[in-house]
């Protein structure tokens, strides 16, 4: 059973169709990548899932039932892209406050905060104020406040921005652990290499519409261009009319080729063997998510235009 189902969700603002008929499904335990250029409607979509906005049309099904913001927000942890904490409030008190707002009892909140502070080596922070923390430190604190109440659904908007590689890995590991323990994670970012590394499933939105939906490998297969890298010390002789591929690029020890429609890699190998070319390696080149992202979004203007509704 999926944890979250969005059905034909719409949210129009005065001058923009921020979310225009988006449906998607997030399975339990998934790390789900929500991608899109700036202003695509990601934040609006997330705000509807977190109960901050009501959709104009459409339905949200959360954990098998119609989404009820008042009671279900306790099951959701949300870390917005723009981090926010009370600067003048002591860290221990602040974390207690945010945890209690999510419905934890005082004693539960205290026990869990202690546990996380030990895990992240933050014990000495309890009586400090947020304004004393560096950007990376407050990022860690923000992450802790997001997941403290053990939400079923964790929504992280650019969770790694401003973190050094050590702390990035620390948080990345925690994200994997959360998913292993059954939490579902929606991960919103522009950093495609992180998406490839972390996400099982991705959705790409642009101009308020969903333009791509699938697992990372599915998407890559869908957008592959039948490119292969052939490693060979010899130069491939000039192609005759029967060659099932064309050469795009020749390097010192390899060549990149594109297989023609209807031909298979085996056809290529057979042809090369018949031409007596010594092959060291033969490898398919799949597009990176970055390439796919750019290709899909490039055609639209970089800045979203205002439109009349």
């Amino acid at each position, binding site marked *: 059973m999926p944890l979250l189902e969005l059905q034909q969700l719409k949210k129009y603002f005065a001058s923009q169709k921020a979310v225009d008929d988006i449906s998607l499904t997030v399975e339990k335990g998934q790390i789900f990548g929500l991608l899109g250029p700036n202003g695509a409607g990601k934040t609006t979509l997330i705000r509807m899932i977190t109960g901050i906005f009501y959709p104009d049309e459409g339905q949200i099904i959360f954990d098998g039932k119609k989404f009820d913001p008042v009671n279900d927000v*306790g099951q*959701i942890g949300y870390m917005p892209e723009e*981090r*926010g904490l009370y600067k003048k409030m002591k860290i221990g008190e602040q974390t207690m406050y945010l945890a209690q*707002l999510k419905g934890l009892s005082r004693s539960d909140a205290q026990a869990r905060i202690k546990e996380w502070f030990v895990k992240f080596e933050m014990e000495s922070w309890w009586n400090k104020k947020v304004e004393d923390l560096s950007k990376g430190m407050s990022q860690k604190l923000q992450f802790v406040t997001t997941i403290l109440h053990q939400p079923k659904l964790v929504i992280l908007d650019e969770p790694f921005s401003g973190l050094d590689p050590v702390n990035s890995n620390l948080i990345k590991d925690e994200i994997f652990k959360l998913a292993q323990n059954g939490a579902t994670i929606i991960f919103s970012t522009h950093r495609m290499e992180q998406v490839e590394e972390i996400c099982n499933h991705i959705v790409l939105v642009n101009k308020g519409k969903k333009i791509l939906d699938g697992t990372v490998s599915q998407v890559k297969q869908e957008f592959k261009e039948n490119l292969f890298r052939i490693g060979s010390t010899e130069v491939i002789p000039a192609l005759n009319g029967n060659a099932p591929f064309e050469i795009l690029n020749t390097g010192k020890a390899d060549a990149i080729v594109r297989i023609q429609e209807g031909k298979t890699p085996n056809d290529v190998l057979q042809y090369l063997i018949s031409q007596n070319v010594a092959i060291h390696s033969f490898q398919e080149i799949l597009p990176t998510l970055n390439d796919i992202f750019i290709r899909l979004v490039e055609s639209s203007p970089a800045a979203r235009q205002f439109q009349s509704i």
Partner: protein
Amino acid sequence: MRKTILIIKREYMTRVRKKTFIIGTLLFPILYLLLIFGTGYIAEKSRQQLKIAVLDSSGFFTSQKINLQNQADQSSIMDLVKTTAGKSYDYDASGYDAMLIIPAMKWDTAAPNNLVLKANKSYGAAVESAVQTKVNRIWDEVKNENLGIDAGKREILALNRIQVKAVNENDEKMDAGLSSGIGMACGFLIYFIILIYGSQVMMGVMEEKTNRIAEIIVSSVKPFQMMLGKIIGIGLVALTQFLLWIAFVFVIYNVTANLTGSGGGGAANQIVGSIQTIFTSVNLPLTLFCFAFYFLGGFFFYASIYGAIGSAINEDVREAQSLSFPVTMLVIISIVLMTTAVNDPTGPIAVWGSIIPLSSPIVMMARIPYGVPGTVPVWQLALSMGLLIAGFIFTTWFAAKIYRTGILMYGKKTSWKEMLRWAFRRN
């Protein structure tokens, strides 16, 4: 509900524990006392005894009469001086600060309008009038003597003073002077509370918005709960401060009451005396109840509007000023109406000003000390309270709609027109 209480608790605790709150709460009464005792003390210290030489050409100002008045009023000592002095009188050498020149005149005709008090430096109006009173007493004495009015007859003359006092038939113990004083004080207190704590609500909302914590909080609670929690929390801070001050007044009252027994300052005596009169001559429970009601009602009415404004602004303090200006103007107009109402508590301005919720918290408090139902009929009080409750429910609802949109809206400069659109948009 539990979450709203959590928010109230946070808003309250963070503010009450702040140094500025503690210092402000302690300092205000101390400064107030210093002001009262300090000015009294300084006035006492700086009072100097003026020595005045009297040059009498009329022959009425005998040293016996002058000495009698010197004993009665020691602010100046007059001396009858025989020597005639020229224009360049040496004040330092003679030891006199000033010289009063009395020309030749008759007792039964009008005395010359201006007697001249010569000195080599300027003295204020207070000195002038003190000397004038003294001279006139002596002059009265001269006339009495010549008319043959003895001490007994003088007493009868003094008995003849008639005073006029306004009495409201419905409420006889009412005292116009005292009532207007209490009304004024209550009105100003509510005025300060609305402005000071209203702007605290505004700045608090603005802080949450610019800190970006707003988005995290609204993913846990409804924006309405968030706004209400803040307003109630800050309202309780205002109430706490106010109650502490009342407690201070009682402490000071008791301390000074003991002091005056052992001959404390005259200023303290006066204050204690006036507090006592207030307690005995005004319907205290009713006035206190109404004060608490209008204090909270007025605060909620305006604080929610200030909260809505806070949600609409981005970091820019000037924006806050220009958006809150019309609201602040309304509060200031209320004070202007109140000053009229204090002098004419049954006039149309007072009546309407105390019924319309925009100004009723301040204007009604100016009328209540005059007496209910004597000056303020029960129906007016009931209507005013009902409208104020309806009014703050409306402003809270209205503000919540603006707040919901504004708190997550960044970058754009907002106008009142825009805010009204948010408020009246459906859904």
